[in-house]
């Protein structure tokens, strides 16, 4: 069954693990349809495999953000150096 079929009106079949996996991004971005979200959450609450997998998936995002929070400082002189560089080249466009 394709993901599209799951949205068909009147389609109420339970999601399996593979369906749930396919909807993770939509669920986290809250772009999932309400009916599908309810079935996603029902499966997640009951499945001994999908719950831990989903936790690991969210942990992966949090760990990525934690790593990304390490600051990369702009060298203090770089803006002025860049502006100087641009001033030397403005005429390339303006001429």
């Amino acid at each position, binding site marked *: 069954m394709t993901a599209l079929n799951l949205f068909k009106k009147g389609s109420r079949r339970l999601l399996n693990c593979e369906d749930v996996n396919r909807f993770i991004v939509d669920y986290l971005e809250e772009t999932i349809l309400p009916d599908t979200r309810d079935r996603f959450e029902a499966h997640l609450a009951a499945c001994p495999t999908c719950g831990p997998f989903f936790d*690991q998936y969210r942990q992966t995002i949090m760990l990525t953000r934690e790593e990304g929070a390490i600051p*990369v400082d702009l060298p203090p002189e770089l803006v002025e150096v860049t502006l100087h560089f641009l001033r030397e080249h403005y005429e390339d*466009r303006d001429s």
Partner: protein
Amino acid sequence: MDQAEHETAKNEPATPLAPPLDTEAVLRGDRRAFEQLVRQESPRLFRVIVRILKDEDEARSVMQETFLQAYQRLDSFRRESKLTTWLYAIGINQARASLRKKRRYQTLEEADMDRLQPSFANGMYVASYKAWDPQKLVERTERQRIVREAIDRLPDDYRMVVLLRDIEQLSTTEAAQVLSISEGALRVRLHRARQALRALLEKHFGAHP
């Protein structure tokens, strides 16, 4: 003008004395307005380029070239995205071009990415999973090193998506515009990237015997 153009880039300190960026003046080629764009966007643009290249010296040169290209190509801005999104697209293309010339490290292949995705049989996971507790297992700086190395192993297309969505926290729409792909393609790529990262991190943060 798009209200979002007035917003200070995420995580950047506010500069209360700076007037709002006049996008129309920038697009007319007004140098003073363009230089304000340079001052406003340099911190974030530099950070993104450094994260792609992992080389500060090269990132300086790529950032300068990005602003120059943007200035020279102002006429090509189609107003289909925010001006800053267009700027980041130029910066990322420049950084990728530089990577292709000077890459100093190996990344995974597409076949490796396939192997790092979970497998299913009859709609069920083949493997079983147990909760992680990385905060207890490894101290913060070591965690960050492990995660950085895993991100750096991702192929460029996947690393860019993780960088824009999960680190810089751009919206799906903005990230898709920066990378010139559809939002659907971006979601698929992001999911594959996160699942590959999960698999790479499993050996560090999974249950130890």
